[in-house]
């Protein structure tokens, strides 16, 4: 049970897909024009990811390792088609908003990445936990980015006006450059926070500085030059 919770929670912060692993950036940049788009896309990915993780984990011992990628893609494509049809039936406006990015979930790095790195090697319940956690993290990140961009770029949040009267929307935020700006600034803020935390931990005297960027020497090079 402990491991289940661990796999579930790692996707929420420690390995947050778009912000920590930088995976699946295509929908992150493209569909986060509004918070509701972000949450819709996130839910679609959550659904596909959880089920594909589960299915792949179920059949992981049958799939020959040489054709595993093809099998993963077939499974995720099946699920994506299901999501697409469901979305057309029950959430048509959202489907129109997301457009090509729903079918593109098939080749989303997160789906394949989790299938290859986790589901193909772990039992079913852990794979489900992993898919749920990653999917929730992805949904959270997309909603967060979508909220920032919608509030600044359109003055609304989930369609409701939240800014003061006479607010001039900062339109660049809902255009393509705004996505890169928001993502970059969010990453910078997260890195800053992590570094502060690490420095604090180091100052408290624990020698084992649990660096998240293990093998990379970049930081130590910078230090030795100072």
């Amino acid at each position, binding site marked *: 049970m402990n491991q289940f919770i661990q796999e579930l929670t790692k996707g929420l912060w420690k390995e947050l897909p778009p912000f920590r692993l930088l995976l699946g950036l295509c929908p992150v940049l493209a569909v986060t024009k509004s918070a509701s788009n972000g949450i819709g896309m996130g839910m679609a990915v959550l659904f596909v990811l959880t089920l594909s993780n589960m299915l792949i984990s179920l059949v992981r011992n049958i799939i020959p390792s040489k054709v595993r990628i093809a099998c993963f893609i077939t499974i995720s494509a099946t699920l994506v088609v299901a999501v697409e049809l469901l979305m057309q039936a029950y959430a048509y406006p959202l489907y129109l908003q997301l457009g090509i990015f729903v079918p593109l979930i098939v080749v989303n790095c997160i789906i394949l990445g989790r299938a290859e790195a986790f589901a193909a090697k772990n039992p079913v319940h852990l794979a489900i936990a992993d898919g749920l956690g990653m999917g929730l993290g992805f949904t959270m990140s997309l909603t967060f980015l979508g909220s920032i961009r919608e509030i600044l770029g359109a003055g609304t949040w989930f369609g409701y006006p939240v800014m003061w009267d006479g607010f001039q929307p900062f339109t660049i935020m809902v255009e393509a*450059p705004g996505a890169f700006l928001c993502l970059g600034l969010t990453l910078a803020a997260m890195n800053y926070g992590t570094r502060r935390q690490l420095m604090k931990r180091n100052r408290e005297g624990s020698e084992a500085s649990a660096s998240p960027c293990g093998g990379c020497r970049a930081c130590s*090079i910078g230090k*030795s030059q100072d």
Partner: protein
Amino acid sequence: MSTSSNNDILLAISTPPFWHCGRTIRKNSLHTLIALTPAVIMSLLQWGMPAARVMALAVLAAMATEAVCQTLMKQKLSQDNGTAAITGLLLAFLLPASAPWWLVVIGAACAMGIGRMAFGGYGANQVNATLVGWAMIFVSFPFLMDPTASQLQTTLADPLLKLKYFGAEAVADISVIDLLLGNQLGGLGSSQVGALLLGGIYLVLRGVVRWEIALSFLGGTFLAATCLHFVDGSLYAGPFFHMGTGSTVLAAFFLATEDSCSPHRRLPMLLYGLTGGILVVLIRAFGSYTDGAPFAVMLINLLAPMFALIRSHPFGTGPRKAGSADWRTRA
């Protein structure tokens, strides 16, 4: 020096002896400010107090943003070297005199915050900081950034807008003298073409700005505009029109030449400016925006590292042959 054994890091250094010419960032900034003064005076004569308001606000906001960022980043405060003031002033030059105060403040804050400080400070930015701020507010608030739409109490017209919507014949009677004297609608400072030209030449003579970039930028504009004009004179305006309108001169002397965003050998500088000048005309003729100069400068800023690759090979090594290994391995 734990990194000295790391052969992957290529540092381009020239050999001593070195020679200090006494030049500092602050002196360069002072010369730039002196060069901008005629344009400031001309824009005050043309637009009056609203222009003074925009310029003062932009300079102040840029310096304040830099101070705040430097405090947060625990850097030494460097407002006294004048680079932030220049960024703010150049931004103001691109704005219409009627810009509301919050637009100016947002633009200056974006220019300094995202354009420069996010990359680490002066000299670290890849794209001209002024233009980053300008582009962000230009894309966001096109109506307020458009002098034709917001500057109502004037009889002047934006020549580029005329060219865009009424063709080259509508602008054929605009004299170059009028353009040089700033009798045109545009950014409050960028339209003072004659004054900017004067300041630009001063900077070139002072050696603050390299003549290669400025000259080839204007040359590229001239070349491209002439070619297009000969192809169809009724559609495409002549070269002097393109050089005298919009922010071509401002871009050539003050924006494209920012040290950290431009290459530094003669041939790369010439190519860099030439590309920019050609892009100005291409964007104006075939793009959706009326003035292509700022966008052209941003684009060549991004291309600058590519131009910088054009370099002579070190002494003792042959010219690089196609298909051969890196020259460093054969030295």
